[in-house]
């Protein structure tokens, strides 16, 4: 109490208080710093462990092979002929700057294959080339795999969580704000939207299914173009429905208002999702895919883990919507979307923020157990989970059992600690 009185100048807004509370929690602050480290490693994984040099000079010409590799991956440039299909480690450079770990996770060091322990005598030129965390059966460097695994973990966190946050907040906000009686529309608008929505799906995805699948098989760019076209078709159908409804609702029978039971529908949807075990659901969706990949697994995790956030958002909005400032916003004549997104949602974000932190931990854990089982993995993919599972092939390789598992554990713990810290900081009882 005394501190607040002494510092009258302190910002007393909700988030400022939360921030101060958070900063008092040493553990939480440190876990936030660790998150920055993880993000840094993930972002710059290519510059930390790579068989390509950062900079090199060959035949009097300078190259930046790693930067170049991004261009090649995007299809913008090509490698000069002397670099196509070469072993980057065997080129004789005039001068070269290598990454800290001079191996890519996919690099097979044939001289050090069949599980070289970190403490074994490794057949390397110098300490610079040592495998500090050993190698696996193919001679792939474990440390390089760990570094690039960080990127996978980071992507899991970002991709799955942003998907589940977007879907979860949207669904939760709709069902919490409108309830079963809050959303009213004219009879004709309701039915036209359903009919034209179905027709739109039919024309956009049913008939164009062939083109879409062809495009997906050929080129991702074409596919996105075709997908955009499909979405345009879908939305124009819905637009037509609403324009028609606007005119037709003048007829009194068609214009009669009806309630749309948003809450029941969304709650049912959540119940359906919750009654199938997540792992089983994800595995069966992966089983349906022709060529599953880690990216797909991440998207599926995102699409299947939004229910928690939706539940929190719904509960918060149920609380918030009866408060006076929302009624004030409504009576000022603000549009419903503006009321929801500018006034109701920001006041219920705190619990969502906490569930994001825990959600990231859960998603990383889920993805690593999936890649441990080999789900959605291609042979050349290296993640923490896949490295851990390769330890099962050879019990002598303790380094394969310890390091990747440790990485998963630390990352999961950090995000759990962050979640705890946020919970404490937002708990009004903790305010001092």
């Amino acid at each position, binding site marked *: 109490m005394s501190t607040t009185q002494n510092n009258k100048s302190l910002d007393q807004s909700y988030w400022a208080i939360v921030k101060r509370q958070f900063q008092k929690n040493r553990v939480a602050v440190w876990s936030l710093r660790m998150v920055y480290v993880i993000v840094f490693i993930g972002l710059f994984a290519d510059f930390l462990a790579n068989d390509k040099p950062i900079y090199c000079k060959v035949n009097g010409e300078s190259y930046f092979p790693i930067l170049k590799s991004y261009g090649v991956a995007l299809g913008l440039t090509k490698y000069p002929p002397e670099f196509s299909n070469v072993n980057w480690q065997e080129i004789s450079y005039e001068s070269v700057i290598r990454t800290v770990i001079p191996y890519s996770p996919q690099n097979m060091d044939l001289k050090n294959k069949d599980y070289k322990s970190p403490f074994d005598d490794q057949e390397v030129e110098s300490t610079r080339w040592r495998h500090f965390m050993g190698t696996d059966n193919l001679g792939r460097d474990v440390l390089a795999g760990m570094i690039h695994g960080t990127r996978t973990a980071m992507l899991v966190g970002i991709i799955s969580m942003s998907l589940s946050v977007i879907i979860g907040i949207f669904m939760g906000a709709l069902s919490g704000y409108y309830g079963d009686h809050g959303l009213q529309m004219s009879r004709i608008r309701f039915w036209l939207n359903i009919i034209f929505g179905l*027709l739109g799906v*039919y*024309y956009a995805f*049913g*008939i164009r*299914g*062939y083109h879409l699948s*062809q495009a997906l098989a050929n080129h991702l760019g074409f596919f996105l173009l075709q997908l955009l076209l499909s979405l345009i078709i879908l939305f124009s159908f819905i637009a037509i429905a609403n324009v028609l409804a606007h005119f037709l609702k003048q007829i009194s029978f068609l214009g009669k208002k009806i309630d749309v039971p948003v809450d029941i529908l969304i709650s*049912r949807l959540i*119940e*359906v999702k*919750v*009654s*199938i*075990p997540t*792992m*089983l*659901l994800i*595995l*069966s*969706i*992966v*089983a*349906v*895919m*022709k060529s599953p990949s880690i990216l797909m697994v991440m998207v599926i995790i995102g699409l299947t883990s939004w229910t928690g956030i939706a539940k929190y958002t719904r509960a918060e909005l149920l609380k918030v919507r009866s408060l006076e400032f929302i009624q004030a916003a409504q009576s000022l004549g603000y549009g419903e979307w503006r009321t929801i997104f500018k006034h109701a949602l920001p006041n219920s974000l705190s619990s969502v923020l906490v569930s994001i932190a825990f959600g990231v*931990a859960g998603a990383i*854990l889920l993805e*690593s*157990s999936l890649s*441990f*089982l080999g789900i959605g993995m291609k042979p050349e993919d290296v993640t923490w989970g896949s490295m*851990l*599972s390769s*330890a*099962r092939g050879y*019990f*002598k*390789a*303790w380094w394969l*059992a*310890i390091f990747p*598992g440790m990485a*998963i*554990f630390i990352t*999961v*713990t950090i995000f*759990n*600690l962050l979640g*705890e810290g946020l919970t404490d900081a937002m708990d009004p009882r903790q305010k001092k």
Partner: protein
Amino acid sequence: MFKYILKRLTYFIPTLVIISLITFGLSKITPGDPVKLALGNKDNGGDAGQAQEKMANEKAYYEKAENLGLNLPTFYFGLGTVAEPDTMYKIVKRSDRETLEDLTSQYGNWDLIQSYFYQIKKIELSLFDIQTDSTVFENMKEIKQKLNLLYLTSDDFDINNNLNSLLKNSVNNDKLASLHAAFLELQKSYNDVKINATPSKNYIPSIKWHGIKNQYHRWLLGDSPWFFGEEEPGQVKGFLRGDFGNSYLDGRPIASKLADAIPWTLMMNFISIIIGYLISIPMGVFSAVNKGNAKDRISTIFLFILNSLPSFWIATMLVTFITTDEYGMNWFPTYGVGEVDSDMGFGEVFGIRAYHLILPVFCLTYGGIAYLSRQMRAGMLNTLGQDFIRTARAKGNTEKTVIWKHAFRNSLIPIITIFSSIFPAIIAGSFVIEFIFSIPGMGKLSLEALTARDFPMIFTVMMLSAILTLIGNLVADLMYSIVDPRISYDK
């Protein structure tokens, strides 16, 4: 109360219908041919030597498909286009149907496409009549291969390529003269398809009603009579009457595979939950009572770490370090549930099983302990802060009585309900732990089914776990009102 249960049970129906539709839909869009899987994935359409053999293969395929009910329409109704025929579902072979569908959505003239496709089939059968000798052997091999490719492709470029290659291989060869003519005919009919294309037909939707003779109905409700009449051979009872069908993988009834697997998972989960409760309840109470002092902080940190330890990592570490001779600690078996003979006594069997199950049960349990203790601690703290505890203390009760008689019972509510989550856990199993320790339980069974796309099995597991989850939720709600009489559902 009875009315409430009845009301909840009726709510189950829409949820279960949606889940059954989702699983059924997933199985329909899965790549791969279920009939081939059920036949043991023999390639029967490929290079069969004789015409008769090919016919026999084809016949076996159709019989199997009929047996599995795959010659029926998929659903009660189908949303398609005018360009597609009503009887598309009768083309059982999945690859054929997909090619035909793709061709139809490009050109939209079913009759011509159909005759083009029949021509391929006719030529393929006529291939067997041609006497092959060494002079045309290479050409024939090429022709057979390209002809098979024609079955699979709907892409204009690919079809033209294959047709040209067919013509090139049969040209200027007396023995293949009749084939060459047939290929020319085929090319003509393909060009006919392209010239007379009516793609606009694809934009007119049409709804086709198939009635109750469809795959979904057969799977869920069966096609044998419900009350009167005898079941004819080939009819099934359906999921709701307990007929889960046969696994595609080994042809065994799914019910019997489940009966083999469930006891393992049930036992492991049951033991782990009992141990979990026995350890975590006193631990939670202990740390709540000692809130804030060193003991509580240590146990909180310990539980937090335990909660974040991935169980598949711990399992891998345990298997690596203490089940092999590599590190001199060969204390436990690496995997499996052990071999038992029928003449062993109960004690001996129990010993072997227990020895094998210690590690997997440990891995299942420790995470639960952490979770349950934290819940128990939170519940206890919440109760201890309430007025009636202060009253109990004011009455002069000893601290022990207050904690165990007044507070303990009331803080049990949140963690009792967790017990209901055991039901779905039994069906879904614990994939990773069972996978690591090779326990023949539900998790391993479902994992095998999923990697092999054995959909009858996946259906069953999904539906059963959904039903059990719903029942578990209901039981949890009922337990609330039993533990806490203030909660009542009859209003």
